[in-house]
Every structure is written in structure tokens, then in C-alpha cells.
């Protein structure tokens, strides 16, 4: 199951598409264009988040353009990642789950908007990312932000940043090693252990989310002329100190802490059951035979030894 998760929806998608199989295996062996796009897109996005810290390293004439570049580049990075991942989630089931869970995410985000900092959407992203893998979690984060912003307003230059940050929260949950269980109903101990790990991750992710969202927005939010303003020419230490104070005062102690608490409580309360619900609708079942039954099943039921392969059908030969 681990391998399934790491390779993401590509292999999760449609377990028994006989005709798609050869294509699939070739693309996992060599990193294709979409993998490169995936990596590049994420690196560019990360750089855009960190633009205030990157600027001192830039030549003088490029510094003024940096904020504009950061704002401009991130939507392109979002589209590029969308393109890279779109081809891998073409199976009906993945898309249906992505769609319905996006609806849940949108609803929780909007329902929580009135209550400052109560961001239950992280609970969903973390649980779904955990159950269905990093790519799914990433896409879910992106689509949830995209849909909630378009449905209920609040669309703005920050939207692509939010999409990336939420996408990373969802993807991260799938990438935590250990205590992974593919079982639908694991023992109580394992269930609680996994929920505990995810809750811890949720707390960290809540703070990290606030931090990186503040990092790129801080110069815009504060503007110039204050003592915690971003100063392009100042040493990195001073900027970091200014930023640290800004983020501490504006979000770390308030919104982020509230978010961390709600996320932890949400994961601990609803996590085990929700994970079981998600896993019951698994995207794929590892080790299945396509079309035919496994020899073990045939043996058990005392039926004939091998399914009759349909003559002249390459797909059947492939899997029998």
C-alpha cells in the first residue's frame, strides 16, 4: 500500500484498465515530463512563497520586480501542476472522490469562515491525503481552495498561494512514514496511534501554514513605513526579525494556535472513523487479478482451475 500511496493516483486510479497498463508502467520507470513539471512547479511555488528572503540575493535591478514576479509566477505554477497531475487522475473513481471531498472541504471552509481560525478543512485534507496518497491530498487542497474561493467570493491574488499551501498540507500527511495501515479496520491501538501522529502533524502543519502564508504576504500587508516593514536592502537578520514579530503578533499566537487546536481535536475525534470510511472506498485493491479470479479463490471454491482465456484477446492473456 505504501508504494501505492507514493506513486499516487497514477497507479491508484484504475486498477484494471488493461489497455492503459503498458503506458502506465513505462511512465513509472522513467520520470516523464509530468514528473519534471511536478517537481519544477513545486520548487517555483516554494520560491515564490519565500520571495522576501530571496530578494537580497538578487541583483539590484531585479529586486523591484521580485514581488510582482512572485505574484505572477504562482498562478502559472498552479496551472502547470494542474496539467501535470490532471492526466493522472482521469479515472472515474478518483475524480468522483476528489469532487465529493472537495465539496466537503468547501463546505467546511465556508462554515468555519465565520468562526475565526476554526479551520476544520485541515482535518479533511490530512485525513484524505493520508488515505489516498500525496497527489490526491495535494489536488484536494488545491481544488478545495479554488472552489470555495469561487463559490463564496474571496478570490484574490492570495488564492494560488493558499492553494499551494493547502495542497502541501494534504500531501504532507501522506508522506509521513510509519504507522501506516492499509487495513479498513485495524486494531484500536494502531488506529489511535495513527490518529495521534496525524494530530501532531496537523498541529505542526497549522503553524507552518500560517508562517509561509505570512511570509509572502507580509510586505503587502504591512506596506512600507513601519518598523516591521519589509526592507529590501536590509540584512537578512533584520528582515527575519521583523517578519518574526509580525507573524507572532498577527497569527502565530492567535489564528494559528486556534487552527492547531481545532485540527488536533478534529483529527482525534473524527480521525479513526473517517479514515476507515475513506479507506473502505479504496481507490484500488493491491494485488488483484484483472478480470479473472485469483488461483486461491478458484481453489477455495472448488471451481475450475483456470479461467478460459478468450481467444485472440491480448488483454486477457496479459492477465490470466
Amino acid at each position, binding site marked *: 500500500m505504501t508504494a501505492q500511496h507514493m506513486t499516487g493516483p497514477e497507479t491508484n486510479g484504475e486498477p484494471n484498465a488493461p489497455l492503459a497498463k503498458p503506458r502506465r508502467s513505462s511512465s513509472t520507470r522513467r520520470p516523464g515530463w509530468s514528473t519534471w513539471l511536478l517537481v519544477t512547479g513545486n520548487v517555483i511555488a516554494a520560491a515564490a512563497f519565500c520571495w522576501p528572503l530571496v530578494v537580497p540575493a538578487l541583483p539590484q535591478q531585479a529586486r523591484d520586480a521580485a514581488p510582482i514576479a512572485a505574484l505572477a509566477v504562482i498562478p502559472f505554477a498552479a496551472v502547470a501542476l494542474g496539467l501535470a497531475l490532471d492526466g493522472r487522475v482521469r479515472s472515474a473513481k478518483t475524480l*468522483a472522490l476528489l469532487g465529493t471531498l472537495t465539496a466537503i472541504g468547501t463546505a467546511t471552509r465556508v462554515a468555519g469562515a465565520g468562526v475565526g481560525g476554526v479551520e476544520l478543512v485541515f482535518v479533511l485534507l490530512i485525513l484524505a491525503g493520508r488515505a489516498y496518497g500525496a497527489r490526491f491530498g495535494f489536488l484536494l487542497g488545491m481544488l478545495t481552495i479554488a472552489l470555495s474561493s469561487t463559490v463564496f467570493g*474571496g478570490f484574490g491574488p492570495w488564492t494560488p498561494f493558499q492553494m499551494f499551501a493547502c495542497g502541501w498540507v494534504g500531501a504532507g500527511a501522506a508522506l509521513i512514514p510509519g504507522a501506516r495501515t492499509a487495513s479498513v479496520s485495524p486494531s484500536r491501538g494502531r488506529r489511535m496511534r495513527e490518529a495521534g501522529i496525524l494530530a501532531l502533524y496537523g498541529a505542526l502543519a497549522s503553524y507552518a501554514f500560517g508562517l509561509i502564508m505570512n511570509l509572502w504576504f507580509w510586505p503587502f500587508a504591512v506596506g512600507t513605513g513601519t518598523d516591521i516593514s519589509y526592507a529590501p536592502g536590509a540584512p537578512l537578520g533584520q528582515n527575519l526579525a521583523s517578519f518574526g514579530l509580525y507573524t507572532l503578533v498577527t497569527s502565530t499566537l492567535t489564528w494559528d494556535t486556534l487552527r492547531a487546536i481545532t485540527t488536533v481535536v478534529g483529527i482525534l475525534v473524527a480521525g479513526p*472513523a473517517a479514515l476507515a470510511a475513506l479507506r473502505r472506498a479504496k481507490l484500488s485493491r493491491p494485488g488483484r487479478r484483472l*478480470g479473472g479470479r485469483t488461483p486461491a479463490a478458484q481453489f477455495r471454491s472448488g471451481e475450475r482451475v483456470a479461467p478460459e482465456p478468450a481467444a485472440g484477446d491480448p488483454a486477457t492473456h496479459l492477465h490470466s
Partner: protein
Amino acid sequence: MFRFRAGPLRTAAALAVGFIVLRVVYRVLFGGVGGGDVVLIDLPLLYLPPPFAHVTLLGPITLGGLGSAALSAVPIAAAILAFGVVASVIDMSRVFARGARGGPLSGLARALVIAWSTLPQLTDAVRSVRTARALRGERGVASLVVPVFERTIERAVAVAAAMEVRGFAAGHPREGACERPVVLRDVSIGFEGGGGAGVAEPDEESRYPGAPDVILRDVDLERMPGTLTLVVGPTGSGKSTLLHSLSGLHTHVDDGWATGPIRVGGLDRIAVPPRDTSGFVGVVMQRPAMGFATESVDDEIAFALDVRGVSPTIVAARVAGVAEQVGIRHLLGRSLRALSAGEASLVAVASAVVQRPSLLLVDEPLADLDSAARTRVVALLDRLAHEAGVCVIVVEHRAAEFTSVADEVLAITDGTLRPVGAARDESADAGADPPMRAVPARRVASDLRELARRAPSLEVVGLSVAHGTSVPVTDAELAVDAGEIVAIHGPNGAGKSSLLEAIARPRRGGQVIVGGTDAAGLSRHTLRARVALVPDDSDDLLFCLTVDEECRRNDRTSRLPRGTTAGVLATLLPDLAAAPARSEALATLLPDLADAPARSEALATLLPDLADAPARSEALATLTTRIPIRTLATRTTRIPIRTLATRTTRITIRTLAARTSPTPAAPTPLTPASRTSSTPTHASLSGSRTAPRLSAWVRDRHPRDLSVGQRRCLVLAIQLAAAPAVLLVDEPTRGLDPVATSLVASALRRAADVGAAVVIATHDAEFAVAVADRRIRMQDGRLATSEAVVT
């Protein structure tokens, strides 16, 4: 594409103002509003220690400083506002819908379309789950989140299947030979691991305990164009599995297996996935509204053409043509949300036949429909088969409706498919539908009823329900005695469900008196213990990981002794492995009693000195469902039970127990002392003293892995555990086949027998007649006078 919505603009305006205000606040806080001429407030400067030595807090506030702070924020605020304007004039749902038709981001756009169309369903889901958990007396987060999650995932699975069979993401579309739509030779079908699978199987029926790997064996089937074939069989027999072995969902989506050649339109079904055969195989799924993947009727019908990339003008013409053919022209242009269940079924048929399939597979099309809608669907399928020449295969347990139009009726019994004759015009029931023998009829001994009766348990006086302008219930008057079952029947939308809900959770607008006390004055907890409602979507009450947890949780919430709920469930599901067989055996053992409830009633009357209801019901269950009944029957053959009952001879529980059980004098609770050898799991428990126990198989099961009938019994057990005086059940038989129906019917009967006043709302007239003492018709929110159900 364009339309105006004020919402996003308003949000954007609020955000823009908020942005400006925040920037001013930051400047005030961090010493940035000095420098102007007019000093408004002269705040002291505060210096911070390193590393924040460059930061000073507060300082003088000047008018000019405030102004320049606000001005500096204007460009970004304007940008926010501009985004708001764009968002408020572009209809994003249309943008998504267009993007989903093709192009590089069509996958994600499709996901967004599904999300968009799921949003309103989500609100409904949350509403009904909130009601459900209140009915169960739960308030926690998990009881809300988990059922909503389950519902959503259920929808995802349904959407996925519906998209798959309509050619979504088809790699290599194939054409089928329409002269031989279906040929199966010596085919066996099943699930790996015996059906312990997840919701991935829409065919959730195939989950009876120890369900064998093989669901169907040695199936030979050949159907011709222009025929309508009806497949019948009890729940869990594999009707849907058979249907989806033809649609391809069984092997390609549901993780099932099949052997032997399954040829659909001449193609090997096992090799070709459903999405590649959507051009000539149309599929109408169970509960079609769950699987709608778009927002409007037009888009839904056009789905299969859209994903194939057919040009919009041709699509529009084709959609109009199909709508005409199906008779839903008036629905075009409407939102799918606004459709009734019957209309949704017709739209689902239209979207399945839009590509003019040569084979149409229909899964339980009549399940949720009232009789008018049923007639329309049957007539439509008849026309498609016999006028348009489609090979139609319908799976349905309402066999009677189809017998007049079906060319052949096939029945599944014990894993094999057999023809049962029944050509068209021959209205024979075909014996395919297992007779409703196990459905308890009315009680025979009317004098017994008087004995069981106490004061009227439930009185409803002048109850009205109003939601805004609509008034679903007007001035309802109802009195139900303890031990009585009243069925409220009427068409969809008559207000039946609203009435039950208003009784369970009384608000203003009438009086609900339970056991002589006005329910409005009762605390939440007491009310829940006295009045239990099993809602229409009974699954919403379930949210734990295993049946056992579910039962224990209920014991805690309802403050019941540990094991109570499990005990009640055990009595409701007497023997998971062989319930129908056992009840048959009982019927032969006690031939002088016409039906099961009379028997239980007789026993209930015989055992009045068990004061509390759960214990009594446990004892009853032991007596009526376990093997002791055999002993009881043989022991009491000298005195027929009927005589015993009518004489109201009071045999104490002690005596009975001593007579019926080999364990000496176990007064209460009764020990299920001996078991049939056919249930080894039970045998291991036989030494236990805690009365009916659930088998380990059930206890460790995920609630949603139980069959529909078993799940409903679990919910009934949860709601009955506190021994409520009033039990309300909304549509108890929805989606149940005769065997499961009889399971629920006897559960209701047991509840009545232990002294509950039972009110059911149903549009299943047959069931109402079979189970109820009185029937009351409801129409347009008004209750008619009751009709006694005469023997």
C-alpha cells in the same frame, strides 16, 4: 457563462475594507503613522530588545500618517475588488462544465463539476444527519462527521460508476454487435474473499454472513434484441451482481471476478472495461440521483456524448430527441436538484439511452418510486424493448409490476439462475418473489390484544408543522395504544415523514402526549427514551467502526446496562445465517398458530411478570427464535398454545424457563441453552448466561458491511434499547426485499408485543396491511380517519 451574483462582490468589498483597516492598524502599532502635521494622539514610543531592536511600537498618531497608510493600501484593495467583480459576473459552474468536456484540465474541471453538484446535497446530508443523531441522543462531532462522510463517499462511488458506464475516460471505445447483445455460457461470478469488501461494491446485497466466494454459478443466458428480461431474487442473491457482470462494473470497478465467457455485443466483458462499451451498453444505476455527475438535466443526458467530444449542436439535437422519446421534454433546462425521485429515474434512463444502446441494463428502477412513477418507468422500459428494439434487462424485486411486459422472468435461487416462464400477458407471479409468508399478518386472537394493552401510549392533539409557507402537516389527531401498530400511508410528499418527526421532536403547533405526559415538558434525554424515531435514511444513525462499538456506545448514551443494545439486536437478528429457514421451521412446528406475531403475542401474554421490556423482549426472543421453541412446542403440544393464550394461564417465567431449557431454573434473563448445530459460532456462546448474544461475526463487522435489512435492524435495536413507549418508523421497508422485509416486520411486531405503541409511515400498502392493526391515510398533510385492518 455570464450572470451577476452579488455574493462574491460583497465578500471582496469586505476584504478590501478589511485590508485597508489592517494596514492602518499595523502602522499604528509599529510606529508608522507619525510624520503628519496634525497629531491626533500622542502615544509613547516603546523600544524592543534585540533582535527586534530596529522595531519601535506605537508612537504619535497623525492625521497625515493615517491618510498615507490608508492610501498606500488602496492599490491592493482595488485589486481585491477587481477580483470580486470578475468572480461575481462569471458563472464559474458553467466554466467548469465547459472545461470538463475536454482539454488539458478536463479531469480537474470534472472534479469541480462534481464538487459543485455535491454541495447542495451536502447541505441536505448535514441536515438529515443532524436530525438522525438527535434521534439517537448523540451530540458529538463524530456522530455528525462520520455519517456525512459515509454519505459523501457513497455518492462518490455512485458517481464514479455512473461516469464509468457512460464512457468517461474511455481509452478505446468499442462497437458491439447488436444482433447478439448478451451471451453467457457456464459463467460463475463472485467476490474475492467472500464479500467482506467495502462500499466499493454498489451491490451491497451480497454481504450476508459467510457469503461464499461464488455468488452465482453456471449461468447460461442468451438474450435477443427487442426483449425485456426481468431478473428477480431475494436480497443478497446476486441480482445486481449479475447485472453488473454484464455492465462490466462487477469485474472492472467492484473488484469482483467472473469465469467463463461473458459476451456483451460479441465482446469479452472481462477484457473490455465498461467505459469502452458505453456506446452500445446503457446502464441505469440504483438510486440514480446519487450518481448524477452534472448540475442540469441537459448536461446529465448529454454526459455520454460530451465526454466523447461530440459537437454541441449535435448533442443538443440528440438530447432533445431522447427527452421526447422518454417523455421528459418539460424537464429540459431544469436543475437536477429540483427533480422528484420519479423524474430522476426518467432522466437516468434518458442519459443511458442517449447513445442508442443495443443493451440496456436497469438496476431496481422502482425502489423509491410511488405508484404513478412506477407505472411510467415500466411503460418506458416496455417501449424501449418492444418498439425501439433494445435488449432490456431489469433487476427488481417488485416483480409484479413488470410481469405484464416482461418476455421472460428469471429467478435467482441459491446461486443459480433459472427461468420461471411467465411470458408476456401472463400475470403469474412466477414464484420468483418469495412469498411474503414470513411477514407477520395481523394477530389472530383479538382478546389477547386487550390483555396486552395499557392506556393509550401516544396521543397527538392538533399537531401542525409549518416550514415557511408550506404546511406539511395540518392539525393531525392520532391516538395509539401500547402494543398497537398503526400504519400511516399515502403518496410521496403527503407529510408522513414530517408528522413522525414532529411527534419525535415536538415543537410548537400542537400537543404530543406520551404515556399521559406532555412531551414538550420532557427533557431531551427522557424524550429520547420514551419516543424513538427510525428515520427514512436510517443509516445516518450509524457512525462507529463496528457493530459492537455501535451497541456499546448506545448503551452509554442512553444510560443502559452494558449489553442491552446488543441483546436487543440479537433478538431482532435471531440467526443471521438462517433466519428465514428458521422461521419456516417454526411455522411447521407450530402449525396451529397461523403466523409468527400471534405466536410471539401469545408468549408475551404468557410472560407478563417480566417487568421491564428489554428483559422481556430478550426472553421472548430466546423463546421464539432459539431452539428452545422446539422444546417448548413439543412440551406444550398437549395443551395447544392457542388454548393457553386464550385462557391466559399465567405460567411464570420460571416455570417456562425450567421447562424449556436444560439449564435448571435460570429465571431471568433466560439462557439460550441449546442451539442448533447449524450455527457453530453460537454454540460456543451457549454456556454464557447473558441471554441472546451476537455472533462474533456480527460484532466485529463494520455496520455498513451488513445487508440493508440487517442494518435497519441494527438501527431499530439502537432505538429500541431504551424500551421506548413509542416507536416511530419512517418507510421501514424501503429498499428491502421480502426476506429482509419480514425481518423488519417481525422486529416491529416484537416492539409492539413488548408494549410499544408503533407508528409506521410507508407507501408500501402491502406491508401496511400485513403488519399493522390500523391504517390511516394521509394526503396533503391531513390524516384521514383510520381504517381497521380486518382479518
